Structure formats: structure tokens, C-alpha cells
């Protein structure tokens, strides 16, 4: 087992490496086909040509394309991600990213954990009452929710909250007064929670239905297995059978689905952060596009892909440990 595990691990790491390299190549050339001279974006019209040339040299844009490519690869690993062209002019991108990353991690982390938790319960209860009216209503609701584009959840929430609680904050991650230390710690927590509430709720609804439907169908399959019948014949409590015998096996496919969903959630944060002006990576994507800030866009895009890759990798490893049937 130990040796085969190492082989499995090694192959996954090699594939991961190839994919990362592919993505970096893709990323590099994608932003080189963008029309126009990037240096022009840094300076106003009629800037001194010598200054332009100087900056071109400083940024390495006068070098041949393969050397730029090489530098880009090296720079990505050493933390030299270039400077921002528009969003935060001439500041190193590596330094402006952290606050955005933490916000997105917070949002998507809380959203995913809650969505998985609620989705599993939802799917479990639906599967347990298979064929009954509860299951029918629940499944129909899940299918409808599954078809709703993420940004529409956000819009509906805004509409509902604007109608019921007009004072509810819709913009940003904190109130302006938060920054001036005029709040004590409780007020700060409440403030952050209030601002995060709607974005997190949108994220939950976005992926809840998908999880629920998968848990349901997987659990229905498991419940027809012979060992469940055995457990029933032994006279165990029905809920105990569900929770202790059926659920652990039914949850296996969910692990893989969560990993695949990280890409989906990334897309969701891009939409939700834009609508709620929640300043995370998704918001930064839009700002970078708005300013034609291609080094920033490149960096954000790279981070988003790496997050998805990492999640998939972790899921593969987890799946390996959880499910002995995984082929080596």
C-alpha cells in the first residue's frame, strides 16, 4: 500500500506541475495578444518618450518574447509579479494583493462550509423521505435553485432586503467608521457579519442545490445496498442506520464534487463581490479589466486557477485515504 500510494502521489504531483506550467504559459500569451502598448497605460498622453523607454527597460518589455516568458515564470515563483498599471499605479502587485485574498478566502470559505453543511442535511432529509411529498417539494426546489444564475440570487436578496430593512448595508465589507477605530470589538464583529451576510447567503444558495442533489442521489443508491437491509434486520434504530451506516458511504462522492465546485464558487465570488462591492479577488478582477491593468489581471487569474488546482489536489488525496477503492 505504501509504495503504491507514493506512486499515486507522484503522478498527481507531476500532473499538477504540468498543468501549472500550461496555465502559466497560457496566462503569459493570453495577455501578450492584448492589443495596444501596455506602457502607454502607465503614462498620460504626450509623456516624454525617454521616460517611456526607461520604463519599458525597467519592466523588461523591450526584451525578446522568450526572455520575457522566462522572466515571467521565474518572477511568478520568486514573488516578483510586476507592477500594477492602473488600479494602484506603479505599486508592486505582490504587496497589494493580501487584503483582497483574505476577504475572498473568508467569503468563499464561510460560504462553502455552510453550503456543504446545509446541502448535506437537505439532501439527506430528501433522500430519507424518498417519494414522499417532502422529497418532491425539496427536489423541485433544488432543481429550480440549481437553474438560477448566481447573480440573480444577489439581486433578489438586495430587492428583498431593500424592501424589508432599507438600512441594511449592501456595499463593501465594512462600514466606513470601522476604519477609524470608533467601534469596539463587538460592534466590529457585528459590522463585518452584517456586511458579509448577503454575499455569503448568495454563495450558499449558489452551491447548496448542487450538493443537495448529489447527496440525495448518492444516498438513495446506498440505501438500496444489502448491508443496510442487514442493519434493519438486526433491528437498529432507523435514524442510526441513516447516520452511522449510510451517510459515511454516501458522502464519498461529495468530496470530489466539493473540489470541482471550487471553480464554480470562484466564479460565484466574481459575480457576488462585484454586486456587493466586496473588495476581494473577484472585485479585483473587474477593477483590473476596467483599468486595462493586465499584470494585475494576470496575477488575479493565476491565483484563482491555483486555488482551484489546490482544491482538486487535496480532494484527490483525501479521496485516496477515504475510499480504498480508488484505483492506483
Amino acid at each position, binding site marked *: 500500500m505504501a509504495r503504491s500510494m507514493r506512486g499515486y502521489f507522484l503522478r498527481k504531483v507531476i500532473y499538477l506541475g504540468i*498543468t501549472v506550467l500550461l496555465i502559466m504559459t497560457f496566462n503569459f500569451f493570453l495577455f501578450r495578444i492584448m492589443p495596444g502598448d501596455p506602457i502607454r497605460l502607465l503614462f498620460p498622453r504626450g509623456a516624454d518618450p525617454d521616460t517611456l523607454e526607461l520604463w519599458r527597460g525597467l519592466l523588461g518589455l523591450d526584451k525578446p518574447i522568450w526572455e520575457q516568458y522566462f522572466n515571467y515564470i521565474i518572477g511568478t515563483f520568486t514573488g516578483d509579479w510586476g507592477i500594477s498599471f492602473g488600479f494602484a499605479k506603479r505599486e508592486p502587485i505582490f504587496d497589494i494583493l493580501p487584503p483582497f485574498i483574505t476577504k475572498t478566502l473568508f467569503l468563499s470559505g464561510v460560504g462553502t462550509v455552510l453550503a456543504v453543511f446545509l446541502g448535506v442535511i437537505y439532501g439527506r432529509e430528501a433522500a430519507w423521505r424518498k417519494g414522499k411529498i417532502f422529497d418532491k417539494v425539496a427536489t423541485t426546489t433544488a432543481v429550480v435553485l440549481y437553474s438560477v444564475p448566481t*447573480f440573480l440570487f444577489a439581486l433578489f436578496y438586495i430587492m428583498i432586503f431593500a424592501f424589508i430593512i432599507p438600512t441594511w448595508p449592501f456595499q463593501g465589507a465594512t462600514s466606513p467608521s470601522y476604519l477609524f477605530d470608533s467601534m469596539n470589538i463587538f460592534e466590529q464583529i457585528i459590522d463585518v457579519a452584517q456586511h458579509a451576510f448577503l454575499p455569503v447567503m448568495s454563495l450558499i444558495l449558489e452551491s447548496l442545490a448542487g450538493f443537495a442533489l448529489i447527496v440525495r442521489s448518492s444516498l438513495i*443508491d446506498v440505501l438500496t445496498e444489502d448491508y443496510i437491509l442487514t442493519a434493519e434486520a438486526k433491528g437498529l434504530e432507523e435514524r442510526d442506520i441513516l447516520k452511522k451506516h449510510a451517510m459515511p458511504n454516501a458522502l464519498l462522492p461529495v468530496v470530489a464534487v466539493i473540489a470541482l465546485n471550487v471553480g464554480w464558487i*470562484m466564479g460565484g465570488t466574481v459575480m457576488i463581490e*462585484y454586486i456587493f462591492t466586496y473588495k476581494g479577488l473577484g472585485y479585483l*478582477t473587474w477593477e483590473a479589466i476596467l483599468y486595462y491593468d493586465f499584470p494585475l489581471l494576470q496575477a488575479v487569474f493565476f491565483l484563482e486557477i491555483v486555488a482551484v488546482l489546490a482544491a482538486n489536489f487535496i480532494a484527490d488525496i483525501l479521496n485516496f485515504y477515504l475510499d480504498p477503492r480508488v484505483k492506483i
Partner: protein
Amino acid sequence: MVKSTKIEQSKVLKFLIIIACFFLLVGIAEAFNWGLTTSNMEYTGAFLVGFAAILMAAAFLKFIKESASQRMVALILLIVTVVTVTLPLAILGLLAPGSVRELEFNVVTMMMDGIVIALVGYVFLILMFVSISDLIGKSRVHGIEKLMGPARAEKVRLANDRLKKIWKQYSTNRAGVFALIVLIIITTIAVIGPFLAPEEPLQPKIPESLTPQPPSDRHWFGTDSEDKDVWSQFLYGAKTSLIVGILAGLISLIIGTVIGLVAGYFGRVWDEVLMRLTDFFLVIPWFPLMIVLVAILGRSLWIVIFVIGIVSWSPTARVVRASVLSIKEKMYIERSRALGAKTSHIIRRHIFPNVFPLIVATSILLVAEAIFSEAFLAFFGLGDPNVVGWGWMLERAHDQSAMLNLWWWWILPPAVGIIVLIMSFYLVGDTLDEILNPRLKRR
């Protein structure tokens, strides 16, 4: 096979009705703007129908077995079509005011219309063909046999039986049937919607009031902040969602199928390389990638369609590959190879037909995703600003903070439209998947 000796009247009637329907559809398409941009389109009719007619002729000649008299029939039919439909429309088109000026502007739209009409024409061609064979032969099967030869006729009959069986299974699924009806309704809205719309959404208009008005007798769905009719925009929007969804789904379907077939059939290096590529597209988060691509390539409808197609093919490739891998090992493939069949023949005749049902179901799910993607791009201001769509409507509403102002009549129609359309595509795809993909059948 029952052979009756005389041509039944009902068959003549059916033939006439089908022909009439075809002309009616062409007429509707021409008169009421199949084009995506809302400009005067009459003159394009000539080119479009010409295009469709050429396609029809090609298909016809392919169908008919090698016999001089049969080919003559096909040629005469083609000439009749050209003379009765294309020429009058061409003359009308030339006489229409402003046609020369708008001609070059609309080349792309024309091509789009041509494709749509050619597709419709193809379906009608087959229906017409069956009717003609009814007329010429004494019975349907006999007629087809006469025109195509016995082997082909048997194939048509089998396909017919299979379709009937699938429909029988499909019609037992209530959700699937419901979704299909909804889809037919939305398609109808897309075709005749622009004709029903009280005003053209993109036409400049002097606003009477700058605050949106709630629904009234004059404006069924109220007005937006430029005093334009929301109901008209809604009607125009259905077409955009449908066409973008179907075309983008088609693009990703073609890419996915080709890559899956090649990777699965040829294996080895092909498989490694193509599957790494597929994995790459599978892990890349779609939405950021689409944003980046559209932002770089530009914001036209064609680029949106292309980008959605390019981004979303990877799941199809995987499904097709897996299925090819299992079909490839079947005995009849080996026998066929032993008999000297070439690779292209095996793929075309044995592998592809077996993968096809799978592709049909997948493609419908792809359309649902493409519609979502289109709405998403349009909502975030990356769609074509000159194409009225449901995402486009939502973008404008959001821009004017319609949510905070509770102008629900402006938001609900496009939102509900998108949700219902996506849902019905999901349901139809899911139902078909269950029927065509026995592996997924419920216990």
C-alpha cells in the same frame, strides 16, 4: 409492410401542408426579422433562401440513389424552389428601400439567418422527402425503398422505430414533457416575439418620464428608465438567449466530440496530450476565464458565442472519450477491421453512431450552461451592447439601481425568463440522459 394500391388523399394533403408550412416559416422568418440586430431585413431573404435551397439540393442529391430519373426529380424540385421563392424575394429585396446601404452592415446577420433557415429547411426537407416517397411509392417504406435502395430504407425504418421508442419513454416523464412544452413556448416567443412587440427596443425614443412606470394597459410590463417598453425588450430577448445558447452549445459540442473521439480512439500520445488539455480546461474557473477572454477579444455577439463555446467543451470530451474507450473494445469493431475497414470508416460508421445518443443529451445540458454564461456576460457589461437580451436588460436595470428602488417589473421578466429557460433545458437534457444513457437508469 402493407402496400396499398392508390395514393391516399390524406397523404397528398399532408404533403401540401408540409410544403405550405415550410413556405410559411420562410415567410415568417423574412417578414419578422430572424436577424439578431433589429434592422430592416427583407432584402436578405433572397440570399438566405438561396443558401437554404442550395443546402437542400445538396442533401437531396445525397439521399437519392444513383439513378438518372431520380436525380432529374431532385433537380427539377431545386429549380422550382429557386424560381418560386428565391427570385421573387431577390427582386423584392432589390426594390426595398435602403437595401444597398445596409447590405454590407448586415453580412454577418445574413449568414446567421442563413444557417438558421438552412437548419429548419433541412428538417422540412426530410419531412417533404417522406411525403414525396408516400406519393411516389404506394406506401411509406416502399416509397423510401424505391428512392434510396433497400438498405437505406431499412435504416430509416429502424431510426424511426427508435425515435418512437424514445418518445414513448420520454412522454412518461412528467417534468421532461412539461419542460419541453415550456421550451416550445419560448421558441415560439423567440420566432414571433419581435412581430408582437409594440416597439423596437433599440430605436431612439423621446422619453415621457424618466422614472420607470409600473405595468399598465399601454405597457404590459411597465417601462424602464428611458421610458421604453419592458414587454418588447422581453420578447426580443428570448431570441438572443436561444441563439447564443444553441450556437455556443454547438461549438463546444463539436470541439468536445472531436477531441474525445480522437483521444479515445487513437489513445497513447494523443490520449495523454488531449486529456491533459481537457484537464486544463476542466480546472480553469470558467467565469473568470470568460471575463478575461471577452475583455481581451472585444464585446461582440460572435465573440461571446465563440468564447462560451471554447471554454465549456471539456466535460463533453471526457464523456465521449470514456464511451469511445468501451465501444472500441467491442468484437464487431475488430471484425470490421479484419474485413479491411479503414479507420475513418470505423469511426464514422461504428463509433460515432454509438456515441451519438450520449452527445445529444450532453448537448442539451451544454445549451443550458451556455445560456447561463451569456446572461452572466451580458449582465456584467461584457455582452454586445447592440443586442437586446435578458442579461442585457438586467444589466441596465442594475445600472439604474432598479433593485434598491424596487422596480420589480423591470427585473422580474428577464430574471424569470432566464431561470425558466435554463431550467427547462436542464430538465429536457436530464430526461434524455436517463433514456439514452442506460448506465444512469434509476434502480
